[in-house]
């Protein structure tokens, strides 16, 4: 295959996957934990209820993906917003480091927090 001049496709794949995750899964989570429970529409789950849920390995894997992929979606989109919105494309190495570095850091934190929940 012809060699590509850039590894941009890798970041675009992460951006797309993260965008799909964010589009489908985040609204309901935010509605429940950010609006419904604080406003008392529903009773917030008790500590034991939530812990029993989060102890399940599948749930922890899901939460890891929910925290990691959308961060890479943010990284890619925010990087281009800075390039175009603030016309700072000349700072592209710094912006790249901040965006993807931040996403990687969040991923590592998520892995650390979810590895051993108890």
């Amino acid at each position, binding site marked *: 295959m012809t060699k590509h001049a850039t590894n941009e496709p890798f970041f675009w794949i992460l951006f797309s996957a993260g965008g799909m995750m964010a589009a*489908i899964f985040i609204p309901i989570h935010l509605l429940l934990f950010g609006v419904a429970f604080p406003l008392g529409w529903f009773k917030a789950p008790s500590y034991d209820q939530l812990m029993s849920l989060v102890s399940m390995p599948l749930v922890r894997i899901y939460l890891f993906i929910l925290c990691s992929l959308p961060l890479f979606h943010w990284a890619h989109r925010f990087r281009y917003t800075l390039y175009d919105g603030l016309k700072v494309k000349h700072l592209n190495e710094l912006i790249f480091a901040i965006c993807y570095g931040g996403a990687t850091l969040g991923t590592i934190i998520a892995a650390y927090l979810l590895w051993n929940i108890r």
Partner: protein
Amino acid sequence: MSATRQQTIRPAPAYTEFHPRWYRPRVSVYWWLGEWHYLKFILRELSSVFVAWFVVETLLLIKALRGGPEAYAHFLQIMQNPAMIALNIISLFFIVFHTITWFNLAPSATPVRMGGKRLPDVMISAPAYVAWAVVSAFICWMVLR
């Protein structure tokens, strides 16, 4: 008659004989405020910041769960702060805006052909909305039961 040329400093001409000076307009850094469509685009892109904010909140929730029942109760209390609720409502608007624009734009990136013709866009975005509803209902059930 002496053929002396007057030596005056003249400003550079606006054109050379066979090449006019083109005017090159500069694009202002506020280009996105000039038009509603551009502003809508930038707001859509800024929804990613609220996506990142949600991830931060979720990581804080998980950290609180690890900290024990008191940490979890403290987290719930912080979430009830009116400023937090306001921020989360705004985030919710932006994230739903992201979802709707994402689903509506996806069909033009992934055209599906069947029987020699391209399927109408709604046949690709509708299943995405259905999946969104089903997933949301499932998560509600998992968390609220």
